[in-house]
């Protein structure tokens, strides 16, 4: 069971732990690797060999595999960071490790899209698109784990291997099957860290929108706006992205832009109550009470889980004479 944090970071020999039941976790097979290495079932558009040469290597300091991995990803994404700087943002002293959600939060706080990757095929596809991927592994066994973060930067389907910047090894080449075991024991956690003007090769609109919303949540509104606009170039009818742009405009006091973006959101996704609700709020502030009431009622009509908020908006409008 993935505890969600990394501790130990390949510190070498770890003493003790029961040695019985050794093979229990070992013999489950590697279905993802098997499918990818079999020429009959391998995805045809996946290149046979990829090795990214623009992913910087940062040799980790003791216990800092998480910060080092983040520093490599951040630097590659255009924001040079040291592992010391990242450690301040993601490492937890008392656990001698780094929580996976702190890695995500760390990316967001620096205005980066943090998009989880959870299949081996998607991982290799991202590499083929030129994107390095942070991976979380249990290098040892389930009952005696050795948690570790590394950065994947290449693979070779013919040789059946994957390339990692790992620990103090710039080029750690490991069999894809072995990697699948170690990755599975980490619950297949991997993270793509992209600058906000880039899109993943494999993620859905929902996943990218959630990542962009995460940047907005972390307060990096300019980067979030860039991410939403970039998302809209591939998915022009994504309501969440329009909502995000509207919320950012509203936060900056630009009511006209906010109203425009909220309207676009309602057109893209008429079932998104939040877009109608927020449009209602802005229209009311602009003095268009009739329009505000109409939008507020439209929000309630969508009947989603924020009904209480929409009722309140409607009540506020009614109280203000709408």
């Amino acid at each position: 069971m993935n505890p969600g944090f990394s501790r130990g970071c390949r510190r070498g020999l770890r003493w003790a732990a029961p040695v019985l039941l050794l093979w229990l976790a070992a013999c489950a097979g590697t279905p993802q690797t098997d499918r990818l290495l079999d020429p009959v079932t391998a995805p045809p558009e996946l290149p046979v060999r990829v090795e990214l040469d623009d992913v910087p290597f940062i040799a980790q300091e003791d216990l800092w595999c998480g910060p080092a991995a983040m520093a490599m990803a951040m630097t590659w994404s255009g924001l040079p960071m040291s592992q010391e700087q990242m450690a301040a943002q993601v490492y937890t002293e008392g656990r001698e490790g780094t929580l996976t959600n702190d890695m995500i939060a760390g990316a967001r706080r620096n205005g980066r899209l943090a998009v989880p990757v959870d299949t081996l095929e998607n991982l290799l596809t991202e590499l083929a698109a030129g994107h390095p991927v942070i991976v979380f592994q249990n290098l040892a066994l389930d009952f005696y784990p050795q948690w570790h973060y590394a950065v994947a930067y290449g693979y070779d389907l013919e040789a059946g291997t994957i390339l990692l910047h790992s620990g103090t090894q710039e080029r750690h080449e490991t069999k894809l099957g072995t990697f699948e075991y170690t990755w599975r024991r980490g619950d297949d956690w991997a993270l793509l860290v992209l600058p906000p003007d880039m899109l993943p090769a494999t993620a859905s609109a929902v996943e990218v929108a959630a990542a962009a919303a995460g940047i907005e949540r972390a307060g990096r509104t300019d980067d979030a706006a860039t991410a939403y606009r970039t998302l809209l170039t591939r998915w022009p009818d994504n309501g969440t992205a329009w909502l995000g742009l509207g919320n950012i405009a509203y936060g900056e006091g630009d009511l006209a832009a906010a109203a425009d973006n909220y309207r676009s959101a309602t057109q893209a996704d008429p079932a998104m109550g939040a877009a109608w609700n927020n449009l209602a709020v802005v229209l009311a502030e602009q003095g268009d009470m009739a329009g505000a009431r109409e939008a507020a009622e439209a929000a309630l009509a969508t009947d989603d889980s924020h009904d209480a908020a929409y009722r309140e908006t409607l009540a506020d409008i009614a109280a203000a004479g709408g």
Partner: protein
Amino acid sequence: MNNLKKHMRWFAGPMAAVMFVTTSGIGAAQAGIVTTDEAAQQQVLAADRAELITALDRQDVRDQLVALGVAPDEAVARINAMSNVELAQVMDQVNGMPAGEGAIGFVIGIALIVLVVFLVTDAFEVTDVY
């Protein structure tokens, strides 16, 4: 009763904003506005616990992170960058972590057995310890 719960959940956002104001400001809900985060989360699978995350929970996690050596401002910044679902996961992780890594003081014999074991599993490419 359900409505009341939902109502309170909606207020968790603004309440958190009030409780965690820092110099850098918090990117939380403004009056009446539904945040993009919350709207996006409707489409992403949400754990049940996420609905019950309150401002006090966020304060709890902050205190736990501080107890683990994270500076208070830093702890707030980390928490504020997380959705409720992610925060619920962190609460579990911070609470229920394994007690410790391998204890010290095991006899050399066992240590050597472990060494050999991992050499063998590495050779079978099931682990990647060395």
